[in-house]
């Protein structure tokens, strides 16, 4: 079920010809618009790639869990939200107001590692305690269970955040303030290269997303557990017959999926359009679904490609609708779901998906 590109998928990602194809498409669209220069093209592209990285980070955990276990994890967004809050708490505790950009980024990496470890343990425990007893039922019950877990986590987060005085502020600005000013302001690198005023955060996201993609890919193709996971998603009965403990693989993958969701949450803490909030739960959940479904449920390659498509389309439409080329500002919010609908109408099983996976 989990279709991981051994070579072609990730080579496709790293292969210069692939992104260039997209650059070509979007550049030609942008070139049609009058009075727009290189800075606009660069802005759309780099913001798009930055958004694509964030979409990838929040969706990849969902892909892993679905690919191996066939469980559509509706608590994914809630895990991201919890990760965002926990990461925020740690950052606020660690970062003094005088800390420089480099220190803050080092702390950020430490926080990502801590949150990942923490939430991986939580996810594994949840799998053993709640999900494991209901594998023998129809897939719908696993959806329902994880959805219920998400509801509970959301309310608990709301109670804690209210009690600690973080809510009812829509976003927790205290955690957002820990972003180094170099990432919050227009990036100097991009200004000198293209003359484009883009937040440094997007550059940071591109680097982080690329690193994470390579790490997950290496885990899946270079480690023993990655092998178990790939084999288990092909035919879990056969793997079990060969003496591999599939149940333990399920636990580990659910834990990893949870940890990756939380890492996504930590990134969204610094995202200028997101920030730690209870609402992050549903936002992340819906975005992750769109990416995973367009890419084909359970496909690593599909997640990478879909994240790129969605990210670039998102930044392109945001630009189109805010620059006044198309006079309907709200439409940029529809883009994501329109893409989902169009993708499913044209290619029901997703770009790299196998048809009817997880159906019943």
């Amino acid at each position, binding site marked *: 079920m989990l279709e991981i590109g051994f070579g072609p998928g990730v080579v496709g990602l790293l292969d210069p010809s692939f992104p260039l194809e997209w650059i070509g498409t979007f550049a030609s669209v942008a070139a049609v618009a009058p009075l727009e220069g290189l800075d606009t093209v660069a802005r759309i592209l780099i913001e798009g790639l930055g958004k694509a990285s964030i979409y990838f980070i929040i969706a990849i955990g969902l892909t892993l869990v679905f690919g191996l276990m066939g469980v559509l994890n509706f608590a994914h967004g809630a895990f991201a939200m919890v990760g965002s809050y926990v990461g925020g708490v740690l950052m606020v505790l660690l970062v003094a107001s005088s800390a420089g950009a480099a220190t803050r980024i080092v702390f950020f990496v430490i926080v990502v590692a801590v949150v990942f470890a923490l939430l991986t343990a939580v996810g594994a425990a949840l799998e053993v305690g709640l999900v494991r007893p*209901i594998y023998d039922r129809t897939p719908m019950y696993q959806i329902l269970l994880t*959805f*219920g877990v998400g509801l509970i986590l959301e309310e608990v987060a709301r109670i804690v955040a209210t009690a600690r005085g973080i809510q009812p502020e829509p976003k927790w600005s205290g955690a957002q303030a820990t972003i180094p000013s170099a990432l919050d302001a227009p990036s100097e690198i991009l200004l000198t290269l293209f003359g484009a005023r883009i937040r440094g955060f997007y550059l940071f996201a591109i680097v982080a997303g690329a690193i994470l993609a390579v790490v997950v890919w290496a885990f899946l193709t270079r480690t023993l557990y990655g092998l178990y996971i790939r084999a288990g998603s092909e035919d879990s009965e056969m793997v079990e017959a060969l003496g591999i403990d599939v149940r333990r693989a399920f636990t580990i993958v659910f834990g990893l999926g949870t940890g990756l969701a939380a890492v996504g949450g930590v990134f969204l803490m610094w995202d200028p359009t997101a920030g730690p909030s209870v609402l992050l739960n549903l936002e992340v959940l819906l975005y992750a679904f769109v990416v995973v479904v367009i890419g084909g449920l359970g496909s690593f390659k599909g997640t990478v490609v879909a994240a790129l498509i969605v990210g670039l389309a998102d930044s392109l439409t945001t630009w189109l609708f805010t620059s006044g080329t198309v006079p309907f500002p709200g439409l940029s919010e529809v883009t994501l779901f329109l893409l989902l609908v169009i993708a499913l109408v044209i290619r029901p099983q997703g770009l790299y998906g196998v048809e009817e996976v997880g159906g019943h």
Partner: protein
Amino acid sequence: MAHIAVIAFFAVYPIVYGPLTGFPALDVGVGIVDPGAFFDAFLPATTFLIAMLFLGLFAMSFDFVSGYTGYLSFGHAAFYGIGAYFIVLVANGKVPGLPDSTPFMLTMLLGALLAVVLALLIGAVSFRLSGVYFAMLTLGFAQVLYQLVRNWDYVGSNPQQGPNLAGPTPEVGVPYVDSLSIALGRLAGDNFKNVLGTGIDVSATMTSYYAIGIIVVLSYFAMQRIVHSPFGRVMIAIRENEERARAVGYNVFWYKMAAFAMSAFFAAIAGALFAAYRSSASPDTTFYFLVTADALIVTIIGGIGTLAGPLFGAFTFEWLEDVLSSQQGGLAPYLRGGLPESVLNADVAGVTFLDVINTAIDGRAPLYLGIVFVLFVLFVPNGLLGSIRDRLGGTVANRLPAHLERYRR
């Protein structure tokens, strides 16, 4: 029999509720006992029962397609929203060809037919897929509609808040026969003093409750009729084994489409009742993904695949909402007012009991609902009504008399 008992219970409930909460407080020496306040805190108020009615009908329509054909319609809120927005827009004179004086019942049916058309369009695309993909595609369509309505300033001056109902309160009844029409609406509806000389006053809220209740009951019996017809048997056959149903010779695609369309019809009626009662509609309470989720939760608690189950699930839902609400008649104000000062301020590890009430009880219905939901998924997968049926070995109406017979003598 069971139907009559349930309907009678809900019909009598608001009449009994008044006297029960009206019990005077008694001083029994050691302290004050106030049964009225107790009932007020633990019995759902009529306003919550009205919410139960339209949520229940919406959940039934969701269960009609998801519980009986097995296709999880994750964007069902789209039809609910169509019904609700159609009422408000027609009443505001914003739908071309329909004057703002169009009778409510007519508007409701037209809105429901519009939902049917939409369902056929969505279904034509979505039924090419099944399982998770079907759920995602319906969700995608609903979210597109949600975002469009949220940003379309034609529907209201502030589309994110949604339009309000201008003009007269919608009247339920037979169209064009004024003497049979009763105005709905929480505050602006009809009320009747001393009905038929019985001394019972029917308030505006109670009037809405009965008027909406009649439509919900009629819709329930219509759906129940369909489910028990040969058509309903085919729906169940599709749920149990679609391949086999196709092999037997049924054109499963059209059966699924028809079931989806009928379900959309009743979902739109539920939305219309909601909008008429609330005199407004907003994207977040009609078209949003969480509205479908409410129907899903209620259906699971009540019993998926049992048409009446969602109503009992909705009752549980609204009861929790009422008990845990912050307003008068909730548990938190009751505890705060009823418990002695010394208990409220008892300090355990820096946390007083009052803090516990304020953080863990006051307005925390979603938390407990989530916990109840997870417990149901884990331990009571067939829901309230489904489990009772399993226990009795058949539907309650058929099996309960025989079951009771055993305990007679």
